[in-house]
């Protein structure tokens, strides 16, 4: 073995500090007062809206701003205000409220033993609702498990959701998939998997295919902020950048990944939108609890994609107001009142306040809509319960052997016979 002459004198070495391993920790744990001191939250109007044709090099400040439209009093202002017609605001509010009503009831159904698993998206409903309403019917979204509002905005039948969650005889996915990992191609909703992150690159491939075919449709993908640590995220950004894929890549930064705060995904060092910089992609940081801001940012990114200007990375800054899933108790690792202290509030309340301010809405109509949607959900749950809940009804066991390949091979044929079905 060779010996290398050292350029470091003993004296210098003696003056060096000892190295120490840094482990990030959140500001507040259970028992502490919630704190969002590290959150970067400019006012609406502070973050400029460049022309959609601008060069990426001219907008490297955007990942450190925050696209906002609604202020704390529910008033819309600033360059990003999309000035939406009343029916769009109403459709958004309805999709969000429906998502919330559905989440509440189905979460309870899990407690009652009717399903094995459920995940809520409480506090994050504006994201899927705005983007689903904005994008075209033949655009494709590559969801995470936390964008139910995408389907709600497109009136996906509630009964099909319930049957899937109960894994019963009428489950549209034939009992093969875990509850809530839906697939709904006709609704622009790509098949979900239990592995986080693994479809982020599919969205880029889908968009590349659309460009290859000279088509019109674009793709949109979601990934949780925790999951940006996976290679899938970085690989997708590379391909999106290299091939100028017509895709909108969204990080839903709800600040928690099960029990891990966003610092474990690098949030203490920079923003998630700023990850775009190294790939030469525009990066927008957006108030994810502001329906109008989400809409406006998506419109901006979609326009670029449709003009062959390539991909945009959008960080949707929000807060996971509920537990991670039915298997989680968030009071074990974060202050119980953290959700209430979150400065960007609740997306439903904010849109509602905005609409009331415009004279388009009032408390009575809101309560009536809530009651109507709750009744809709209740009816769907009841209908699905009549088919059966987990363990009480299931698709034919034959379905277990279907769909492994397009045409079954001898193994599944023999094994089906062995099981006597």
């Amino acid at each position, binding site marked *: 073995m060779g010996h290398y002459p050292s350029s470091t004198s003993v004296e210098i070495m003696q003056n060096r500090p000892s190295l120490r*391993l840094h*482990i990030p*920790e959140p500001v507040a*744990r259970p028992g502490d007062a919630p704190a969002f001191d590290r959150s970067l939250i400019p006012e609406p109007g502070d973050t400029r809206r460049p022309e959609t044709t601008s060069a990426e090099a001219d907008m490297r400040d955007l990942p450190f701003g925050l696209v906002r439209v609604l202020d704390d009093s529910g008033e819309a202002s600033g360059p990003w205000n999309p000035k939406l017609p009343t029916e769009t605001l109403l459709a958004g509010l309805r999709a969000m409220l429906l998502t919330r009503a559905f989440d509440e009831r189905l979460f309870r159904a899990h407690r009652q033993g009717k399903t*094995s*698993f459920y995940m809520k998206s409480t506090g994050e409903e504006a994201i899927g609702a705005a983007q689903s309403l904005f994008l075209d019917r033949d655009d494709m979204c590559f969801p995470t498990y936390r964008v139910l509002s995408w389907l709600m905005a497109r009136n996906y039948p509630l009964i099909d959701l319930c049957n899937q969650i109960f*894994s019963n005889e009428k*489950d549209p996915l*034939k*009992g*093969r*998939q*875990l*509850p809530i*990992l839906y697939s709904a191609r006709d609704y622009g909703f790509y098949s979900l*998997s*239990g*592995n*986080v*992150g*693994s479809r982020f690159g599919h969205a880029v491939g889908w968009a590349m295919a659309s460009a290859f075919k000279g088509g019109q449709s674009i793709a949109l993908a979601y990934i949780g902020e*925790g*999951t940006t*640590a*996976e*290679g*899938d995220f970085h690989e997708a950004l590379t391909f999106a950048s290299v091939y100028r894929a017509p895709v909108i890549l969204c990080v839903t930064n709800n600040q928690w*990944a*099960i*029990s*891990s705060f966003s610092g*474990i*995904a*690098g949030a203490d060092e920079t923003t998630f939108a700023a990850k775009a910089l190294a790939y030469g992609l525009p990066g927008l940081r957006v108030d994810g609890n502001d329906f109008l801001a989400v809409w406006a940012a998506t419109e901006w990114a979609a326009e670029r994609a449709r003009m062959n200007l390539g991909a945009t990375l959008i960080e949707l800054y929000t807060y996971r107001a509920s537990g991670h899933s039915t*298997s989680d108790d968030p009071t*074990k*690792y974060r202050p119980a009142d953290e959700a209430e202290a979150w400065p960007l509030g609740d997306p439903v309340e904010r849109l509602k306040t905005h609409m009331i301010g415009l004279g388009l809405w009032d408390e009575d109509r809101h309560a009536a809509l809530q009651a109507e949607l709750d009744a809709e959900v209740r009816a769907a749950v009841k209908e699905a319960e009549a088919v059966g809940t*987990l363990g009480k009804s*299931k*698709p034919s*066991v034959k*379905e*277990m*052997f279907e769909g*492994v390949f397009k045409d079954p091979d001898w*193994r*599944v044929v023999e*094994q089906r016979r062995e*099981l006597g079905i």
Partner: protein
Amino acid sequence: MPTMNMIQALNSALDVMLTEDPNTLIFGEDVGYFGGVFRVTDGLQKKHGLTRCFDAPISEGGIVATAIGMGAFGLRPIPEIQFADYILPAFDQLVSEAARLRYRSNGEFWAPITVRSPYGGGIFGGQTHSQSPEAIFAHITGLKTVIPSNPYDAKGLLIASIEDDDPVIFLEPKRLYNGPFDGRHEQALKTWAGDPMAEVPAGRYTVPLGKAAIVREGTEATVLAYGTMVHVALAGIEDSGVDAELIDLRSIVPLDVDAIVASVKKTGRCVILHEASRFGGFGGELSALVQERCFYHLKSAVQRVAGWDTPYPHAFEWDYFPGPARLAAALKRTMED
């Protein structure tokens, strides 16, 4: 002696190693402050400090890669992968790096890491919280694969794995964490309380890797199993009325081939049971070994009972899961030949 469930036994093993060896450290998704989604690392950060047990970014490839780097430096990292289904993003690191570092550097570098991960079905976890990937690791030369079936073994095997100088994949049967499970899913849940294998010494001890356990002695057939299936096998043997010998392999690499051969030579029949799907499963390797080494002692063809060759299906948990009835049928079949 304290009674522990498997979670407590594993926690105790980790606690012992953090206490005794300053070069050990634990990291993985949600293992730090929270103590892991299955609570296996509960309290360890508080007791041993932030740098001894901490949260990792959601990047299984990154977790295993950095563990290898730490191991090469001289530490003994004990990373956790939250579910065995999520080891796959780290597969290249395990196969091309951890498994070969010693060989390709002629012993200059090696990776004494122990990758813990809950595996297996029986919990309605669907496709990606239920799989049994042991065969794909067994196929990789340079990796050891260890699978305990009870709290006592879990602690002893985990300490032995951590102290081992080669990379170990330590698969924890999650269905056994809180109690034994024999596949009779309609029966009330059992806990480990009162089970002799739940009597776990508080201090350090090891169960050597590569040493199978004879769980039940018998004369008419040999059943080979590991993990959850050890308990299913006992129930299946009982149902079949066949006087079968049950071997718990405890580690599939290193494999206690002597124990297998001795038993099959004695009984003349062999049935292999695993949860993983059948084609290309570890049962194929076991069957070939038995056939190669015991051919003239075999009175009937080696039988395999395994998961079907489909992904793990959520609603069909109990149609897929190879329960005692399927083992009993195979035992009866093997006696007819």
